[in-house]
């Protein structure tokens, strides 16, 4: 165990080096580039035996990763933003072939206008591509999730690709303290890779990616895929507990802060959770019954557990770092709303969209959101239309 001053990207690259998968297929893109670059350096230095496949685009990066994983190699890649968007069609194929790929996604806004800074438009746009999605708050969670991703993806009851998010620049480029594990601890934790129907087994040839249309079993395969997501719900928790015994940092689907007696709860995801937590503490000191729920697992979405955790809240404010154009609110808002609708009590729900294109979020913005929620709690008429924080109107 060592404490290192390292960037979010550096921490993730280190995690991957310690896992030492068989193959990395990569294409650089801001703000993920440092991962591809650091890993290329590890390969060049002979620090890892990983086969590094430099490709000409992210579509090819994901295609090469799919080929490699189907062949029977433990494989990963990493991306951001436009690169993620370019992978789009292959993301669905990776998931439907049930390939246990892993991929750190360093979240960044999608064009246009052209913008390289953080928001969740990329990964949230890919929420229905069949990948498991784990969101980290800081570099530590980025490091921890990158390691756990292999165990989750490769579990025989899951066998689905896993993407682990950290916020671009805010976390990926900022240097902070990260508790790291020893190489052998990480290798032991992830274990030996077990192949399933690998293409390179010539003694047992298989067909991967066959045609399955009308009159076939496409529908059954899709149902199987979603049931694997159900299985992942349990496996993510098991792996999170195991990781806790190893590192002292236990993980589940979400984390709560002061929600037991909270009338008002803010739901956050990604790096802004730190800001929200600080503001919750400030408001608590002022005697306000405010709490926070930080989402880690977005796919599969732990709707039952979240409904349970939020069952005492009167008013819920959901904070989204991406918008869904023409929808009632951002992706996190619609998920939380759907979860709460199935409960006995229906809290009032409000959506706060913030930080698009890397726009900063300040403590006062969060305080302002809580004031809006307080008005609703007091029975005042508050617009259900999505609210935007720190946006210029006029």
């Amino acid at each position, binding site marked *: 165990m060592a404490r290192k001053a390292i960037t979010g990207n550096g921490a993730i690259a280190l995690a991957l080096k310690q896992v030492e998968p068989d193959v990395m297929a990569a294409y650089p893109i801001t703000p993920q580039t440092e991962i591809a670059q650091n890993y290329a350096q590890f390969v060049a230095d002979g620090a890892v035996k990983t086969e590094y496949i430099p490709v000409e685009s992210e579509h090819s990066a994901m295609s090469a990763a799919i080929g490699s994983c189907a062949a029977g190699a433990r494989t990963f890649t990493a991306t951001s933003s436009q690169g993620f968007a370019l992978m789009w069609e292959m993301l669905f194929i990776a998931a*439907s*072939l*049930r*390939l246990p790929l892993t991929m750190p996604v360093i979240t960044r806004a999608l064009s246009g206008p052209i913008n390289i800074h953080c928001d969740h438009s990329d990964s949230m746009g890919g929420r229905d591509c069949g990948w498991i999605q784990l969101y980290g708050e800081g570099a530590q969670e980025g490091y921890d999730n990158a390691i756990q991703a292999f165990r989750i993806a490769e579990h025989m009851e899951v*066998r689905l690709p896993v993407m682990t998010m950290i916020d671009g620049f805010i976390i990926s480029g900022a240097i902070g303290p990260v508790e790291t594990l020893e190489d052998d601890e990480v290798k032991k934790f992830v274990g030996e890779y077990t192949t*399933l*129907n690998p293409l390179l087994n010539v003694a*047992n*040839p*298989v*067909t*991967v*990616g*066959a*045609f*399955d249309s009308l009159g076939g*079993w496409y529908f*059954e*395969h899709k*149902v*199987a895929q979603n*049931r*694997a997501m159900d299985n992942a719900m349990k496996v993510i928790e098991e792996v999170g507990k195991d990781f806790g015994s190893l590192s002292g940092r236990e993980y589940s689907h979400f984390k709560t802060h002061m929600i037991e007696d909270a009338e008002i709860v803010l739901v956050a995801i990604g790096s802004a959770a730190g800001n929200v937590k600080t503001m919750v503490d400030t408001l608590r000191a002022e005697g306000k019954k405010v709490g926070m729920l930080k989402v880690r697992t977005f796919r599969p979405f732990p709707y039952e557990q979240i409904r349970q955790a939020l069952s005492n809240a009167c008013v819920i404010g959901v904070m989204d770092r991406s918008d869904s154009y023409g929808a009632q609110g951002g992706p996190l808002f619609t998920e939380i709303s759907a979860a709460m609708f199935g409960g006995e009590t229906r809290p009032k729900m409000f959506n706060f969209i913030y930080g698009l294109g890397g726009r900063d979020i300040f403590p006062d913005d969060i305080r302002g959101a809580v004031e809006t929620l307080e008005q609703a709690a007091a029975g005042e008429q508050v617009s259900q239309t999505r609210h935007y924080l720190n946006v210029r109107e006029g």
Partner: protein
Amino acid sequence: MSKTRPEKKKWDVSDIQKWGPGRHEKGATIPESGNAQDYKTGGWRSERPRRDREKCNDCMICFFACPDSSIRVENDKMVDIDLDHCKGCGICAQVCPRDAIEMMNEIKACKLEEK
């Protein structure tokens, strides 16, 4: 059936019509290779190639041109056309240097066969 097809079949699919999500291999993988032949594409055909044995000199140009490997060959001779897989594209008729293959309306050809 082509001669190159492996005889061994290890995947028992006798009741596959009843298979639910749990019965299939993960990722829709088929645990054997060389099975494209099991997918019969002949039903797509609207025109059927008919070969005139008299005109044909077994030059094999149709064999190389056929995109569905539907020209059956045995001992260097063109035996017949695999109608389970021929989609009726007409390339064989087009490339035949001796006009030994003609395309006929599928329904007409079927009726002719019935007689």
